[in-house]
């Protein structure tokens, strides 16, 4: 008899969702978390009274949470209380005197656009009208179902024939979809940057990602107590069902015999046997480091090696002693889509940061979490996090040496474009570089979105939720279908939990 029915490697939200569903199905389940904190990059840490979100800063597509808790037969509100965030974004470039915000309502956003681009306001409404049925259809039919084989794909199309209409969105680019609707440079930028949620610039990302610009208007939310409330809530639900979580339990190897997973070996030599193993970690790391080449057929090994990691997102954490002059939870440094594309090909891929007029411009998004939940900072103070976009390998430099300079350059960029007097009010500063994220979260290359999400890594070409090479091995998390980002990871956890329940019964 194995020690457990299911052992999950990784206490991020994908692994926890899978674990909770397995436990609900009556399977004795254990979650192994390598650190002392739950959640991976969807988490929160505390220092000097400030509570900083490690990576993820907001929840989109709340129905993914409702779906999980519906399947668990539990009350989501009890475990993860959410606060609605409105406006959803403020776009800002003070140097150019440009600033505008998008509220949750589609009509309100059209009105905001009409202030500076009346034609695009009309096409925004058309965009919403065109994409709404597609979004709901795709989400209902593509998001919570396995897509591991061509047969699975065929089943999806038979059940939802309108999906064929969405096919061009898989092979065109985000940039093309957005450009078809919008002419104004700022509106185009505001609808194009979401491609980076797929880990690519607008002209390389699949057109499907243009839907995010509409999905956000379903409402975005922040959990009370910081982003850690999300994994902590799922963990509580899992443990209320009888599940077990172990912290500081780093798995180093999946025990494989005759191409079947039998359990897990921990860093201290302990072996835990299980009916099945779930790798809720980066798929490349799982197969290369924890399964090993000796257990994989040559063509699978070649497939694993060909997987491209998603981009890293360096994070800056700032504590300030005043209420910053921001208008929204998320403020975006307004950057044209052309600059985003050029940055990727001319700088990012060459290991460089973007420079303009001889100075470094650090692109990114500021989150002001204590605006939504004041308990995250000491009285009169606030927390700001900056999620940037920078390469893992820097030409002629190393992140461990470059960190302080990066923070300085990011703050200078923020002062020019979003918060003029920021540096005078900083009382705490720190950052997690791509290398830190790799060390802390065990994401190779600091790739917080797992594997890149372009058409060559999507659906049947993404590492499958049920391993095709190793029996009794399953995958959850950003590397597997449907992909990275909180809703994708949660949906992947739901899919994997469902597959295991079926397989084990």
């Amino acid at each position, binding site marked *: 008899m194995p020690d457990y029915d299911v052992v999950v490697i990784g206490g991020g939200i994908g692994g926890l969702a899978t674990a909770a569903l397995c436990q609900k199905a009556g399977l004795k389940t254990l979650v192994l978390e390598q650190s002392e904190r739950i959640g991976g990059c969807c988490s929160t840490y505390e220092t000097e009274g400030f509570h900083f979100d490690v990576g993820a800063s907001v929840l989109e597509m709340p129905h993914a949470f409702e779906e999980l808790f519906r399947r668990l037969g539990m009350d989501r509100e009890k475990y993860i209380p959410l606060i609605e965030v409105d406006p959803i974004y403020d776009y800002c470039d003070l140097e150019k005197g440009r600033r505008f915000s998008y509220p949750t309502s589609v009509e309100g956003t059209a009105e905001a656009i009409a202030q500076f681009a009346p034609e695009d306001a009309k096409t925004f409404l058309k965009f919403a009208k065109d994409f709404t049925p597609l979004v709901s259809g795709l989400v209902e039919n593509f998001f919570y179902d396995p897509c591991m084989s*061509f047969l699975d794909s065929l089943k999806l199309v038979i059940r939802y024939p309108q999906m064929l209409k969405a096919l061009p969105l898989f092979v065109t680019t985000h940039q093309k979809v957005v450009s078809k609707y919008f002419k104004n440079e700022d509106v185009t930028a505001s609808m194009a940057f979401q491609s980076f949620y797929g880990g690519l610039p607008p002209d390389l990302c699949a057109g499907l990602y243009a839907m995010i610009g509409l999905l956000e208007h379903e409402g975005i939310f922040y959990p009370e107590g910081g982003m850690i409330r999300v994994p902590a809530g799922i963990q509580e639900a899992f443990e209320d069902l009888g599940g077990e979580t172990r912290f500081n339990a780093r798995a180093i190897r999946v025990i494989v015999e005759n191409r079947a997973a039998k359990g897990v070996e921990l860093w201290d030599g302990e072996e835990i046997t299980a009916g099945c193993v779930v790798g809720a970690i980066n798929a490349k790391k799982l197969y290369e480091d924890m399964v090993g080449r000796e257990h994989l057929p040559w063509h699978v090994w070649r497939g694993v090696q060909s997987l491209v990691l998603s981009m890293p997102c360096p994070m800056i954490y700032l504590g300030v002693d005043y209420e910053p002059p921001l208008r929204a939870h998320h403020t975006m440094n307004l950057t044209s889509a052309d600059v985003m594309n050029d940055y990727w090909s001319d700088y990012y891929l060459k290991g460089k940061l973007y420079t303009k007029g001889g100075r470094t411009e650090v692109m990114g998004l500021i989150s002001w979490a204590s605006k939504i939940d004041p308990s995250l900072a000491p009285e009169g103070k606030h927390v700001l996090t900056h999620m940037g976009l920078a390469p893992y390998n820097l030409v002629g430099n190393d992140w461990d040496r470059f960190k302080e300079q990066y923070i300085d350059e990011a703050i200078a960029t923020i002062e020019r474009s979003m918060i003029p007097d920021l540096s005078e009010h900083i009382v705490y500063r720190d950052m997690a570089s791509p290398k830190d994220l790799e060390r802390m979260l065990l994401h190779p290359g600091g790739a917080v979105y797992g594997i890149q999400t372009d058409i060559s890594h999507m659906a049947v070409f993404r*590492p499958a939720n049920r391993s095709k090479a190793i029996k009794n091995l399953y995958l959850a998390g950003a590397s597997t279908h449907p992909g990275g980002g909180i809703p994708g990871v949660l949906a992947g956890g739901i899919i994997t939990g469902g597959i295991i329940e079926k397989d084990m019964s």
Partner: protein
Amino acid sequence: MKKMIVAVGVIAGVAAYLAATTEPSDWRYPKMLMTQLPKMPFRYFV
């Protein structure tokens, strides 16, 4: 082997669709796909 042939067929179809619909001025995306296409049949088995 059968699966491999189906995979190559689907990929060739996607490539043909792209060739027919992509404007010559925008080659970054096709260029990226061209580098990824030969790897896709292997990824299918992961």
